[in-house]
Every structure is written in structure tokens, then in C-alpha cells.
């Protein structure tokens, strides 16, 4: 592997949940069936097009990245990355290119060898506008991909950046050119080919019965070694309660979205375990900074920074988080999560101070002149709505608590609970006063530039729905993302975060933990914050703890031995 060109490397905070003594040495005999209970169907099984969590899990197990991100989620340079489809790589002298060498034994599940052309083809697919990959926006720094020889693909970059290795090695899952050849990009989504994926990962696709189940089985001759589990099945129950019950009753081995109310039930069952760990999600109640009827004008209430700060002061975030999540969340710090190494857990916040908030509102001219409990200024009452998706119980509960806390400050909040498509439509069109929002961030803190930066307000594709604009925030974020020295980088991020926290475009509410319930017969591997399934191929079930379903199915046979020439990296 070529020496690193970056002066400093940094590691995101330790976010790997180790599940205690159960990660013991592997068994002699592989086998067993893992059943995951989930409330959602995958959207598509084409890596370049998928956006649902279920599709992400399945495609990441069936296909390979060029290199796997380490458990510490290092994203600067190549430190921490492990070889996957590429067994080695080398940097260009000017750091503007990286050559990836494909593992000589890598094979597609149909038996064809994986070639450098597949890498070039994959990049072409991800960046083609007719295909419309959600990941296209993340690949802007890659100028082109060329093929040096049948085993070597070279990525060429427009400029040096801290995450250019991550962009190439981890943003894309490599797809087979020979399978897709002849199918125009615009026809991929409805294509039958996409419903029977052919990958190179340690699991191969078996079947997908929409709204019912998806099954993958061990690729016993895989160049990276056969997985220890024979098969993995996503058992789909569109109703959330049914999906939980499937897990609690023992029909499934894993449920990945346990809520606080399930914890007591899980604790009562000695066969079940819970793994909790930091996630990469944060939730907030955002103020719309623009007038809904005329976006060129500031919002008649929330256009005032001082007013937003006063309302933020009136909300006891710690109490809300405790009440809704108990120990399964922490108060959010800002537009970032604690999993990022660049996040300072002691980042200064606007403190909860109801008396201070009331005094501030008084000083801003918002007073309750008629004694109805609602403050007014120039005849306008301090009354607004809070949009919340009814599908999220936690957000609805937090909205109700915010409503009550702001009532004590003299504001009347109307909680608008709507179904998710309506919520999405109104959020996108910015037709709300306040909105209960949330972001599932990437492994990089750079996502905040998209969600809270000025470009996200002005661009047609922008996702800065509250329309927060701050040149100071933008500048600090840009500098932080380009900076290669970790200490300076962290300081620049802290400055950016301080700017936005003090401007209060949102009340930063909660940073939920991931809570995964699993059966005790499973021997798990470390679970990564952004993808608990990343080491699923190394999970196993001791032979003496297997149940009938472990020995059923087409792949229940003992995995075949791999040819001697195949070695795991």
C-alpha cells in the first residue's frame, strides 16, 4: 500500500459497540439462519439507486466496495480502510489519482471475474444523469476513471480533498458491466435485472418476495472467505408493531429499531439481548426563517434571531429527551453527532432558562397585553404551528412537550400531525412555521453544509429547508472540510457549530442511540455506528444452540471449501 499523502489523519470517535464476551472465537462448523424482522421493503436492489435502509443492508452484503471503512470510521486518507474488492492501491505522486488493484480471485456470483472495467462502468453509472443515482452528488470531485490494465482502475480527482479516498473506495458498490451491458441507464430502475442482483460479496442473492421477505445465502467460494452464516432473511412486516412482535415472539432473531417502551419486554425475556450504540442521526425543531407566502421576505416571527434564541431558552431539551427516550438518546448538540471525532461534546449551547426567556421576550416587545396567556407584538400574537410526521411517535411526543414548554413562555403552538408524504411535501416547499426534522448523516460531518449551508437554500436541489443563511457558518465549514490538520480542523468545525447554535435556526433536540435487539444464540461481531450489519459475515451460531430454521433452506449445507489459490486478504 502506498504511503499516505496526508499530513494528518483523524479518527471519528469510538462508536463501535462491542457486545461483550459473545464475540468469541469462531466455531468449527459454519451454518445457521439469521432472520431480521423489519417494517420496510427495500426500494430497489441496485446499489446506485437504493436509498432505503433495507436496500442498503442487502446490497452492501451482496456487493463489494473497493475498500471497507474501518470500525473507527476514519474517513480522511486511507488509514483504517481494509482491502475489499481492491487488494491494494497506490496514490499518484501529486495525490490527484489513486490506482486500485482488483483482487485476482474476485468473481461475480455468476462466475465471471471482476475486472477494472467493472469499476469504470460503475463510476459511469453512478454519475450518469439518466440513471439518477442519489450518490451522484458525492462523486463530484472524481474527474474520471480509467483502466490501466484488466486488474487496475485509476481514479482521477479534480482537487485534493480530505476524503477523496473515501469517495472512490466507499461511496460506490462495484457492479458488473457484463450483466448490465445493453440496458440503457434510464431503464435500470424498472429492469428485472435489478431484482436479481449479481454481486461479488460474501453473500449472494437468493430471492425477493415483495412486502414479504428477502433472502441472501452464503457465497461459499467467495474470494474473501465464506461467511459463517448460511443465510440471512429479512422478514418484512409493514406494520411496526407486527415487526416488533415477530422479534419478541422468537420468529426473528433481530429487530433493529427498538424503542424505550420495548426495553422492559426484552429484559423479561432471557433469550433476548440488546446492543445500544451511538448512531449518526439527530433530531431538531427547525424554525422557518422565510415568510411562507413570499420567500424573499424573512418570516414575520422567526426572522428575528433574538426571538429564536428566546424560544430556544424556553425549551428544556434534557427533560424532553429523558421523557421521550429515557436513556436511549442524548440532547443533540447541533447539526452534527457525537460519533464525529470533530464534535466537541462540550460545545457551548443556549441554556434552558425559562425566566430568562420570558425576560428576553418582554424586552423584544412580545408581551401578553390581554391576559390570554399568549404574547403579542404590534397586534400579532406569538402563535405558530409545528409540523410533525405522525409516523414518528418520538417526534410527536417531543412536539407535544415543546408545545407545553413554549406555552409557559407565552407562545401558542399548534401541533400539526400529518402523514409522512404530506410532511415531506410541505417541508420541501417550505410551507411550515416550525418543523420537527431529522437527518441521518453520512460518515462525514460535511453533510451539514448541504443541510444548513447557504447553497442548500439557493440551489434548486437544496435541502436546507429552514432556509438558514450565514456566511460565517459557510466559511468555517468550508475551511474545516479542506483542512488536513486534525486540531485545526476540529477548531474550525467548532467555530462553524458555534455560529449556527448561537443563531438558533433550530432547537437541537435529540441524538438517538441505535438499539438493536437480538437473540442470545447469535455470536455477533462489532457493530458499526453507521452500519451494524457491516460484519454480518462474521456472525455465527454455535451448533448446540441451533434451532430447526438454522438447518432449513437451500443453503443450509456446510459451506464448500474454497480453492487453495484463494486467500482472504
Amino acid at each position: 500500500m502506498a504511503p499516505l499523502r496526508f499530513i494528518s489523519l483523524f479518527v471519528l470517535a469510538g462508536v463501535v459497540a462491542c457486545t461483550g464476551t459473545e464475540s468469541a472465537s469462531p466455531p468449527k462448523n459454519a451454518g445457521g439462519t439469521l432472520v431480521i424482522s423489519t417494517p420496510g421493503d427495500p426500494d430497489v436492489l441496485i446499489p446506485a439507486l437504493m436509498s432505503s435502509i433495507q436496500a442498503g443492508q442487502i446490497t452492501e452484503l451482496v456487493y463489494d466496495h473497493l475498500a471497507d471503512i474501518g470500525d473507527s470510521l476514519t474517513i480522511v486518507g486511507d488509514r483504517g480502510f481494509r482491502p475489499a474488492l481492491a487488494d491494494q492501491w497506490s496514490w499518484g505522486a501529486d495525490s490527484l489519482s489513486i490506482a486500485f488493484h482488483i483482487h485476482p480471485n474476485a468473481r461475480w456470483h455468476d462466475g465471471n471475474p471482476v475486472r477494472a472495467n467493472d469499476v469504470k462502468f460503475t463510476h459511469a453509472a453512478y454519475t450518469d444523469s439518466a440513471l439518477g443515482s442519489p450518490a451522484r452528488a458525492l462523486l463530484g470531485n472524481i474527474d474520471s476513471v480509467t483502466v490501466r490494465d484488466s486488474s487496475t482502475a485509476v481514479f482521477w480527482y479534480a482537487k485534493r480533498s480530505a476524503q477523496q479516498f473515501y469517495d472512490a473506495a466507499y461511496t460506490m458498490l462495484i457492479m458488473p458491466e457484463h450483466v448490465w451491458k445493453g440496458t440503457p441507464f434510464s431503464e435500470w430502475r424498472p429492469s428485472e435485472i435489478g431484482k436479481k442482483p449479481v454481486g461479488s460479496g460474501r453473500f449472494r442473492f437468493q430471492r425477493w418476495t415483495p412486502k414479504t421477505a428477502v433472502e441472501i445465502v452464503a457465497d461459499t467460494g467467495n474470494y474473501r472467505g465464506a461467511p459463517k452464516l448460511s443465510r440471512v432473511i429479512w422478514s418484512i412486516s409493514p406494520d411496526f408493531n407486527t415487526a416488533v412482535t415477530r422479534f419478541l415472539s422468537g420468529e426473528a432473531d433481530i429487530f433493529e429499531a427498538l424503542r424505550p417502551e420495548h426495553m422492559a419486554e426484552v429484559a423479561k425475556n432471557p433469550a433476548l439481548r440488546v446492543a445500544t450504540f451511538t448512531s449518526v442521526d439527530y433530531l431538531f425543531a427547525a424554525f422557518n426563517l422565510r415568510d411562507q407566502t413570499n420567500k424573499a421576505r424573512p418570516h414575520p416571527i422567526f426572522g428575528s434571531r433574538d426571538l429564536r434564541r428566546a424560544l430556544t431558552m424556553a425549551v428544556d431539551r434534557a427533560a424532553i429527551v429523558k421523557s421521550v427516550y429515557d436513556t436511549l438518546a442524548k440532547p443533540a448538540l447541533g447539526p452534527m453527532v457525537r460519533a464525529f471525532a470533530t464534535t466537541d461534546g462540550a460545545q457551548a449551547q443556549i441554556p434552558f432558562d425559562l425566566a430568562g426567556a420570558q425576560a428576553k421576550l418582554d424586552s423584544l416587545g412580545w408581551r401578553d397585553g390581554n391576559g390570554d396567556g399568549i404574547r403579542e407584538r404590534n397586534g400579532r400574537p406569538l402563535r405558530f404551528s409545528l409540523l410533525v410526521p405522525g409516523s414518528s411517535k418520538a417526534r410527536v411526543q417531543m412536539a407535544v412537550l415543546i408545545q407545553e414548554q413554549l406555552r409557559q413562555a407565552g407562545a401558542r403552538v399548534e401541533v400539526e400531525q400529518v402523514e409522512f408524504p404530506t410532511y415531506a411535501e410541505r417541508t420541501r416547499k417550505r410551507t411550515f412555521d416550525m418543523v420537527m426534522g431529522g437527518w441521518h448523516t453520512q460518515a462525514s460531518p460535511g453533510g451539514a453544509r448541504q443541510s444548513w449551508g447557504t447553497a442548500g437554500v439557493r440551489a434548486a436541489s437544496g435541502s436546507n429547508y429552514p432556509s438558514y443563511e450565514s456566511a460565517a457558518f459557510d466559511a468555517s465549514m468550508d475551511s474545516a472540510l479542506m483542512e488536513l490538520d486534525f486540531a485545526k480542523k476540529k477548531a474550525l468545525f467548532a467555530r462553524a457549530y458555534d455560529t449556527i447554535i448561537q443563531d438558533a435556526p433550530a432547537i437541537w433536540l435529540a441524538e438517538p442511540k441505535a438499539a438493536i435487539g437480538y437473540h442470545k444464540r447469535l455470536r455477533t461481531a462489532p457493530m458499526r455506528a453507521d452500519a451494524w450489519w457491516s460484519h454480518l459475515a462474521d456472525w455465527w451460531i454455535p451448533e448446540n444452540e441451533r434451532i430447526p430454521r438454522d438447518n432449513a433452506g437451500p443453503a443450509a449445507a456446510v459451506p464448500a471449501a474454497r480453492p487453495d489459490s484463494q486467500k482472504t486478504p
Partner: protein
Amino acid sequence: MIVAFVATISFVLIHLAPGDPFSAALENPNVTEELRDDLRRQYGLDRPLTEQFGRYAAQLAHADLGWSFSHERPVRAVLASALPNTLLLMGVALFGSFALGILVALVQVARRGSVIDRLLDGLSLVLSSMPDFWFAILALLAFTYWLPIFPVGGAVDAVMHDSMGFGGRVVDRLRHLALPAFTLTILAAAGVARFQRAALIDVLPADYIRTARLKGLTEGAILRRHALRNALLPIISLIGLAFPALLTGAVFIEKVFAWPGMGLTLVSAIGSRDYPLVIGSVIVGSIMVTVGSLIADLLYAYADPRIRGA
């Protein structure tokens, strides 16, 4: 005519609802507005509504129900896999609810005014007033978790089914059918029982019943042979009404029990704003209701010579 009317109404209503098929991934920062616009263009959703309707009507005229955005398959194929499951569930529930409802009504009328009659009357009132989804969740908890005798959901065991022999597969299907069918049957039977009891009580003062009593027939024989036959006519009308009721109930029951039928398909399609699939499901549902009413009319005519002769 009915299909055209239903298709038009459902097309307009679903397009009036906020959101579109590509709004689900709002909180994925990678799914940009630009990408959503591209997808809308790709599927023709950026065109004026009248143009979209014209295109859809032209498709429908060729018996083409369109393309499902959420399943990435033709709507016809999606419905073809869901419809048999719903027909099976509804068929079992229809037969079970009428058999059980009539039996309960006979018991009540035979012991009219007794504690049993009052108990069954109260129970049927409670059950027929109970929301379908709530009863379904209770049944789910009771029989899959507290007393785990039935599987939680689905039409078959997604893990074991393929490795079973023929007999095992049949048993597996029946086990999965049992709880949703039981739930739907119990709820519908409560209404049938109340209706049938009232119908039986109506015919009891009739002259032919009095004649039967004078002939020395037992109360049981009178009920079974004379009262029930005549009190069944209004029940046949109820079959026509039960079709839409069962179809509506199946929407909730199928969702709770993850039963892959029309109801589950429709609920998922509405949530994901899969316009063609919503309209297709509504059209098929309306055809089912129409056919159900037709069957009820034919049965009524068969059972009552006065109708045949009219």
C-alpha cells in the same frame, strides 16, 4: 361504466393528496430535489394533470393498469399476486362469519331472554362496535406472544416454507391463515348474529310457525326447519353488503398480520403515493364489490321464487 367512474374519482383524489411517489426519502440528504425532479420527469409526473389523466385513461382502455413505482412492476402483476390471498382470506371469513353468526343467532333465539342470550347479545354488540385494527392487534398479542400458538404474520413461513413437503406447506399456509381469518370472521360474525337474531324474532309470530307448533314440532325443529329458512332471505342481502365491509376490514387486518393481499397493497400504495397502484387496487376492489352484489342478487332470486317471477 363503474370502472371508468371509480378510476376517475380515485385518480383525482390521490393526486389531490400532498406528496408524490418520490417524497419518501426526504431525510436522506443524498436524494436531492434535483434528483426527485429527474424522477418525476422520467415517470411523466411533471406533466399537467389533465395530460396525465388522458394518458392513464388511454392505458386503461387497453386494459393496462400502468406501472407501480413502489414495486417496479406492472400494476397488473402486483395485483395478480395479491388478489388470490385476499380472496382466500375473504372467502374463509365470509363463510365462517355467516356460519358462526347464524349459529349464534339460533342459540340466542332458542334461549331467548336467558343469561346466554343476554351474554351473546352483549358480546356481539361489543365485537361489532370494535375497531378492526384494535381487535387485530389484541389478537396478535394474545395468540402470537402471550399464548404463542399462531405465527405472527405473512401468508407462509418465509424461512421454512420452501424446505417443507407438500403436506407441510399446506399446514403452514393454514396456520398463517388462521389468525387473520379468525379475526375477520369474529368481527363479521358479530354483525351477522345480531342481524340474524332480529330476522328470526321477526318470523317467530308468523302463522306457519304457530301451525308448526300446533303440529307438535319441537322448538329446535321449528327454528331450524321453518324459522331459519324464512329468516335467511334478509341474510342473503347482507352477503352483498358484507363484501365491501370485509374488503375494508381486510385493509386493516392484512396490515396488522402482514397478509400479502389487496388491503396491504393498497395501504402501502397510498403511503408511498404509488398512484397507478392505488387506482388499480380501487378498480379491482370496486369490481369485487360489484361481483359480490351480483352474486347476492342471484342468490336472493334463487332463494325467493317471488323475485324470480317478478
